[in-house]
């Protein structure tokens, strides 16, 4: 039974039910205008109920069934994506400060290194050519105000 609870479907289902509850609670705040038919709360509450029902439809068979689940999750595999995410967040935070060309150059360099590129020629080339072309295309040609 406990091993059943660890199944990803059960975890997801419980999470979604809790989330739906929160949504309903928040959505009730929007119900100030009288009739339910017009209420801004209508669809959020409605769809949350649907989510709850669907989650149950997912949890109950999952608890009952005895099939083994292939391991979906592994910490090892998370390392690279986490690094990419962290790097990207850093890039976005620095964009307003360092401005597009420099920040993008740095981003490309570090990201390529994370992904395993070793040759400096490639790193250098791409991290310079790409930001320049994008800048040329967007800022100069198309008039977009890049940070």
């Amino acid at each position, binding site marked *: 039974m406990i091993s059943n609870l660890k199944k*990803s479907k059960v975890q997801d289902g419980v999470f979604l039910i809790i989330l739906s509850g929160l949504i309903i609670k928040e959505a009730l705040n929007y119900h100030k205008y009288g009739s339910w*038919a017009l*209420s801004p709360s209508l669809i959020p509450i409605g*769809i949350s109920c*649907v*989510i709850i029902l669907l989650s149950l439809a997912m949890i109950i068979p999952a608890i009952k069934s005895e099939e083994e689940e292939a391991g979906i999750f592994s910490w090892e595999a998370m390392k690279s994506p986490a690094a990419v995410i962290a790097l990207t967040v850093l890039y976005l935070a620095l964009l307003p400060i360092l401005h597009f060309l420099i920040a993008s150059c740095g981003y490309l360099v570090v990201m390529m290194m994370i*992904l395993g*590129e070793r040759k400096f020629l490639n790193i250098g080339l791409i991290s310079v050519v790409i930001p320049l072309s994008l800048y040329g295309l967007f800022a100069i040609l198309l008039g977009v105000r*890049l940070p």
Partner: protein
Amino acid sequence: MLADMSSIITLPFIGVICLGAVSGLFVGSMPGLSVTMATALLVSITYTWDTNLAMGLIMGVYVVGVYSGAITAILINIPGAPSSVSTTLDGYPMAKRGKALLALRTATIYSFIGSVIGLIILMVSAGPVTKLALQFTRFDYFLLAFFGLTTIGSLTSKSYVKGLLSAAMGVFLSTVGMDSMFGIGRFTFGITNLQRGIPIVAALIGLFGFSEILIQVSKKKTESVSVAITDEKVSTMKILKHWPLGIYSSVLGALIGALPGAGGPVAALIAYDQAKRITKDPEVPFGEGAIEGIVASEAANNGCIGGALIPMLTLAVPGDAVTAVILSAFYIHGLRPGPLLFTQTPEMFSVILAAGFIACLMILVLGYTVAPLLSKVAAVKERHLFPIVATLCVVGAFATSNNFFDVWLMIGFGILGFIMRKREYSVAPLVLGLVLGGLMDDNFRRTMSLLQSSDSPIKDLFLSPISMVLTLLIVFSVLSNFISFRELIFERNKEKK
């Protein structure tokens, strides 16, 4: 009208369309860049150009741009635009099986057919189609959106329930923002930038583009499947075999495009669902590489182009996001689309048609020559490709709306998409739920608002033929879903025993 054509179709005109076509190919296929964004930016640039040339450029970008969304959808599972989401469902699996060239050719041919049919419909029946579109009440829009949502369940070949959950999440997310009835902010928690709602392009880029990078990065080297264009012999006759489905989907796309507010994604989705119902025995099951899926999706989203232009030209009301921008281009050049277009400046109609048809030809030209070369992009080493794509995602998310907040949203959706896919939820339903949810919510409540004045609500609602047809479609759709739902549960129980 033919006389007009000869004065319109000059060499610079054709040249500018080709330029637009190539740009459209590039923009539409790059993840992170979208046709809507490109058109908007182009309008500013062509401000001072000659009107015909400006229209030519924009049409070139529009027509080819919608098509080229399929290219990356097929090759790297990142649709270039919301309208190409349905193409990923079968395009990418097909590519993984080594049939990428077949998929691309199919997309090319049927995008061509779709655009042509859409334009023909524009040419011969703009007036009647407009009248039909005007008959759609708010209730009908609601029914249409609801119908679209009921078909989402059929999209995923994996867990049915997970597909629905994904769509439901999308519907919930569509409610975030300023309510269109009362103006209050829903789920915005004080962040003004959220008041405008979740911008669909940023969500799309994140959910498909950025998350795809994260997924690929997280796989061990041995696991990742690279898509290569093998030297397959692709039989054009085999592709053309599906022409009835193609025509049906194109017409469907055009009609849906003619409804202001419903555009490419809705058209492609409904066409895909129809294809699934109509095709008895696909060679390959839908969702795993059925060629019919690409036929329907691409024919519809390109048919939508001609369709969306109809209300834009006859009513000065845009049929989708890109035509909204084209409308502004008309105004900037001093033109007046709308009821007086045909009396005052009828030649603009010919200009648009001419540009459109030439652009269609460009689909074939580019699709056969350049597109396969683009497949080499998939062969570029990951550690070069992914950083570039990531940067494009960032730039694309920003360029569409000039709002840096969108880029953060994009990342957020990227992470969400990554988590979802790791846990085996399909991401396409979420995007579609995002598109349809708002349509459904707003129009339901508008219907209710209008009904307050009515003495006989039920009669008023259901009396129109359109409403009855749509309601029947919904009932039919729900019933067939219900049946498969029960099948699934029964299957489970059978296995257990």
